[in-house]
């Protein structure tokens, strides 16, 4: 074969591989199991990625395609992949979209630290999912304890019982903050970092927060200025009655009071 012929041959191989990989991503996304099987048979790459780092398994999972997910996991697809844009795991989107059947399959195959997902899995209130996670690997004691406390707060009795059985400790009694201090925190707070307003208010001796368009949640006091919402792993510290810092997932956001209640 002459040089030009070789180049054309190599190029056609390249285009062919690209096509089957693209087709595999598409077939996985729409849940076409027979096409996925055929494309894998033709040599499509199991871990090929979209421009945003989504693999065939990622796309099948976030769209709830259980048959395709099962097939790809059996083929050895990596369930711990994070995308390159949001840096989120496929399980994050699967839980958000309530594809619990897929979630269970992924949890059983994941190798990543269970601490990272325990709270979000428990927040679904789905005892089967939590059970699957606890079977797959034991979370750390602090993660178990926090999640257990959150489950108690949300009255998720089945989930709480599973966590207790897995070794979670009973939560320490809440610090008591006087009503006047709580009322002083009340107001609407805004942040320059994130486009979210948070309303703080007290009700029946408890401090509550509510982000715009989201349900309210009660904060547990750790001191007169420090509070937490274990379920979402949120920690709040008031610097004064007019500003607080919210910490979640390793990030911290400053909020200032814009409107007094």
């Amino acid at each position, binding site marked *: 074969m002459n040089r030009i012929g070789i180049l054309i041959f190599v190029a056609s191989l390249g285009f062919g591989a690209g096509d089957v990989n693209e087709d595999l991503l598409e077939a996985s*996304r*729409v849940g076409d199991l027979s096409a996925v099987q055929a494309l894998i048979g033709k040599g499509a790459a199991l871990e090929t990625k979209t421009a*945003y780092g*989504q693999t065939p398994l990622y796309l099948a999972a*976030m*769209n709830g395609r259980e048959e395709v997910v099962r097939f790809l996991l059996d083929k050895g697809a990596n369930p711990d992949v994070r*995308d390159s*844009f*949001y840096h989120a795991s496929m399980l994050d989107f699967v839980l*958000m979209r309530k594809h619990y059947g897929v979630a269970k399959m992924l949890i059983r195959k994941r190798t990543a630290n269970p601490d990272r997902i325990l709270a979000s899995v428990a927040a679904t209130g789905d005892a089967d999912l939590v059970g699957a996670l606890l079977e797959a690997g034991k979370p750390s004691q602090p993660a178990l304890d926090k999640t257990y406390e959150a489950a108690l707060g949300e009255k998720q009795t089945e989930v709480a019982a599973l966590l207790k059985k897995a070794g979670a400790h009973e939560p320490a009694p809440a610090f008591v903050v006087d009503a006047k201090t709580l009322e002083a925190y009340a107001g*609407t707070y*805004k942040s*320059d970092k994130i*486009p*979210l*307003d948070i309303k703080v208010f007290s009700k029946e001796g408890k401090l509550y927060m509510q*982000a*715009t*368009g*989201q349900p309210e949640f009660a904060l547990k006091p750790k001191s007169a200025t420090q509070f937490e919402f274990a379920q979402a792993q949120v920690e709040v510290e008031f610097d004064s009655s007019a500003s607080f810092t919210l910490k979640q997932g390793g990030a911290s956001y400053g909020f200032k009071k*814009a*409107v007094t209640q």
Partner: protein
Amino acid sequence: MNRHGRAFWRWLALGTMAAVSLATAADWPQFRGPSASGVGSGTKPPIRWDATKGINLVWKADIPGLSISSPIVWGDRVYVTTAISSDTAQKLRTGLYGDTDSVDDRSPHQWKVMALDKLTGKLLWQQIAHAGVPKTKRHPKSSQASPSPATNGSVVIAYFGSEGLYAYSPDGKLLWQKDLGIQNAGWFFDPDSEWGAASSPVIYKNSVIVLCDRQKDSFIAAFDLKDGKELWRTARAEVSTWGTPTVVEGKDRTEVVTNGSKAIRGYDADTGKELWTLGPNSEIACTTPVAGQSLIFVTAGYPPVQPIYAIRIGSTGNLTLQAGKESSDAIAWSKPRGGVYLPSPIVYGDQLYTLGNNGILTAYDAKTGNRLYQQRIEGDSFVASPVAAGGNLYLASEDGDVFVVKAGPQYELVAKNPVGEPVLATPAWADDLLIVRGAKHLFAIAERGGSK
């Protein structure tokens, strides 16, 4: 209508009849008015009102359905579009939130074009452009009729995304219609996501230009106003966007400037030929470019890339800045951060203003990009783009208030005016008459003792 309002519109009518015959400065022919500037021609626009109490309210008209399209004005008429679901429980979900989900309302809808009398709010005609089940879903904060109509006084164009492009005479006669295919604009991260089309049509010479950015096979095209015949079509290497293209008159050419997630682009308005590209930009681009001070301003605000670009009119080629540079021959200034997500920017006087969804208003020196101030407005959430007139900016919030802020290098809140229902549509001007679309009504507001 209250007693004062009725008295006022009679008085307004006399003044306006003369005004319309003399000039068309009162016209607001498309989304954000002439050249998408957002700037009204009035000299004594309303400063204070309370639509809930009828104060400075000229008229209020029921608008059925769900729509965030803006009203437009030509002569004595106000045109507005809407989509009416047979599921009457449907509503817009307001507030600051991030949600990638869609509303899948598969109940039968009617897509309507309505013409109202500018002076009274009386319904002059309405036409059902299309009836059926929506072909695509919508974002919880969007509607099945989000693109605003456009007119040149002879033809009224209504665009309903997947439900088609329609042309009417000013008296409501259907002139032509076109199916532009499924406009499944949605989340870039999931090709099956559908949030619905929002880019509004714009009229240039004898054509209407429509930007159809969607999950696949995006394009921009121009259609003959006379019969809908396609004049040009240019494919776009883009995924979904929601901004309206802006026609910018240059010294030697007229260009159509489009926002885009892959690149901001300029096209020859007469041929559709791509003239220039500029990146990087946000993965989700929703705002409309605006021209002023011999520059074109484009911004987008979906993190992590949230730029503001001030582009010199008439530039050609790849305008992308070299790494570490914030200006060039083609880019007067730029900022890698500070871009906003939904409300489009506005140039008024010497300043460029951006309004964040969270109500942070920022003023820049339009020529240099120097930041003059940043101030949080009281409202919780903003989607409508700012408009301006009479030396003031008007910022409509989802909470149902319109904030009036004095234009200039220093921030000064002049008034907070209740409308009484969420406002997501950008208001329109007809000289000193402000037309605000709320969730359920159209409100016409004017200062008693105004210039008309």
